[in-house]
C-alpha cells in the first residue's frame, strides 16, 4: 500500500512555514514526519500526516498551493549497510529515486524510509520480489 504525502509550496521567508503549520494545527492535522527541499526563493515542504485529504483542503481554503502524491514507505533494519542494500535493489533495476527521507521515529528495531519514484508500481514490484516490507499507511499513522 502506498503512503500519501502532502506537499506544500512555501516561500523561503520568515513566517511562511509557520503560517502553513498554523493552518494544519488548527485543522487538527498531525505531522508524522517531514522534510523540506529548499532553493534560495522557495521550498517544498513534504509531509506524512494523519489526514492528507483534510490537510490539503485546509491549505487550499487559505490559498496555499499544495498537492497530494503517492510515495513508498519501506521498513529496513536499523543496522549498518541496510539502506545501502535497499538502494542497491533500485540501482540494479535502473529505478531512479526522485528524493527520499527518513522517519524520525524507530519502529521496534526497524527504520522507515520514504521514497519518491516516477514509477511507484515498478518500485513496489522490485521490493516485493526482494522481500522488503512495505509499510502500510495505517501502520504509520498508528490507527
Amino acid at each position, binding site marked *: 500500500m502506498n503512503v500519501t504525502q502532502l*506537499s506544500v509550496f512555501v*516561500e523561503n521567508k520568515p513566517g511562511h512555514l509557520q503560517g502553513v503549520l498554523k493552518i494544519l494545527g488548527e485543522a487538527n492535522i498531525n505531522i508524522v514526519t517531514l522534510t523540506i527541499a529548499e532553493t534560495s*526563493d522557495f521550498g*517544498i515542504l513534504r509531509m506524512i500526516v494523519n489526514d492528507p485529504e483534510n490537510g490539503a483542503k485546509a491549505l487550499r481554503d487559505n490559498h*496555499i*498551493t499544495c*498537492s497530494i502524491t503517492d510515495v513508498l514507505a519501506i521498513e529496513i533494519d536499523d543496522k549498518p549497510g541496510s539502506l545501502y542494500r535497499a538502494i542497491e535493489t533500485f540501482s540494479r533495476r535502473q529505478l531512479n529515486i526522485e528524493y527520499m527521507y527518513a522517519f524520525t521515529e524507530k519502529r521496534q528495531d526497524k527504520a522507515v524510509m520514504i521514497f*519518491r519514484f516516477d514509477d511507484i508500481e515498478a518500485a513496489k514490484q522490485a521490493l516485493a520480489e526482494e522481500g522488503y516490507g512495505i509499510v502500510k499507511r495505517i501502520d504509520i499513522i498508528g490507527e
Partner: protein
Amino acid sequence: MFNKEFEAMPLKKMKELQLERLRWATGHAYKNNAFYKKKFDAAGFHPDQLKTLDDMKRVPLLTKQDMRDNYPFGLFCVPMDRVVRVHSSSGTTGNATVVGYTKNDVGVFAEVVARCLASYGATEKDVIQVAYGYGLFTGGLGLHYGSEKLGAMTIPISGGNTERQLMLIKDFGTTMIACTPSYMLNIADYIEKKRPDFKIKDTKLRAGILGAEPWSENMRKEIEHRLGIDAYDIYGLSEIIGPGVSCDCSEKSGLHVFEDHFYVEIIDPETGDILPEGSKGEIVYTTLTKEAFPAIRYRSRDITRLYHDHCKCGRTLVKMEKVSGRSDDMLIIRGVNVFPSQIESVLMEVEGTEPHYQIIVDRKGAMDDVEVMVEVSEKIFSDELKVLDGLSKKISDRFRSVLGISAKITLVEPMTIARSEGKAVRVVDKRKI
C-alpha cells in the same frame, strides 16, 4: 447596429462630416478656452486654416501634462453652470485629471456605449451586470448609462464582492457582465477555488464586456476557455469620454472607432509626425462633439495601428488593433523596449501559467535588473524541485529568445501579488534614472 447611419456611413461622407466637426471643435476650444487659444496662437494655428483633414498636422498636440497643469477645470470650454457631471482619473502618476460633461456630452457618452453593447449582440432583452466601479472612474456610470440607453436591464452592482456577483448572475439572469479583464480572471479563480459547484453554463451569462486596462489575445482565449463566455473588448479613456471610444464587434478582429465623435490619428511617439494608415504608433484623439471638455489632438500614449478591412459586421468605421501597450508603460530594459503585454504573452505560452505576475525593474549598479514574480498555482506546482526549476528555466529562456532580455524568475505563493478588484499592478519600476 445601434446607429446605422453613422456606423455604416460611406467613407467619403464620414470624412466630410469629420472635417465639418473638426472645424467646430477647434473653433469651440479656441474661442472658449484661454489655454487652447494661447497654445494654438503659439503654434501659429487658427481654426480658420483647417481646410482639409491634412491640415490637422498644424494643430498642436495636447499632453497629459497639459491636463494636469490645468487641474481642475482649466480645460473646460463651457460656463460651469452647463456642466452636469465630472469624472476624474485615478491620478496615480501625478495630479488627477478632471473631465466634465454637459447634458449633451452625457448623451453622447451613453450613445457610444450603447453602440458598443449592440455590437456584442446585446438588445433590450439583455441583463447587464455593471461590475466596474461606480464613482469618479468613468467605467461604472459609463456602462450604466449606455446599458440603459440600449434598454437592457441594468444591474449597478459596482466592483468587488465576488460571491455577490455570482449570486446576482444566477438570481437575476445576467447575460453580460462588464468589468476589467483581470477581475474576470479573478472571478474564474474564485469559482475554481471556492465555488466549484457554481457552473457558468447553468446560468444565462454569455459575454464579458472587458476594458479599462490593456489585455492580450491570449488573455481573451483564457477567459473564454475558463468561463465559457465570449470576451469582448471595450476601449476608452476618461480624457476623451470614458469607455466607448471603440469596441470589438462580433468578428473580434479589431476595435471599431466611433469616428463621428472621435477623430483618430497615429503618430510617431518620438517625432510627433503623422504616420500613414496601417502603421503602428501612438494614437491621438480629437473629440468632435464634446462641449464641456473637448480634447484636441490628445496624445493617449496607447500604442496601436489603424486600418480598414471591410468588416463582416457591416460597419465602415476604421478599426484599431487591440492596444499592445502604452508608450509610457513601455519599459526600456538594458536598451530593449518591452511592453508588459509582451511579458504576459510569454507567460501565457508556458503551459499552465496564469497571468498573475508582476515585473519589478530595478537598477543594480549600472545594470537594469529584471525580476518577474509568477504565482505558483496548483496547475504548475510539483512536489519535485526539478519540475519547478524547469518551469523557471523555461520561462527565463522564453524571455531571452522572445524579448531579448534576461530576467530572474521568482516563483511566489498565490495571492502574493497585489490583485486589486480594479486594475492589476503589473509593473513596478524602482529605477531612479
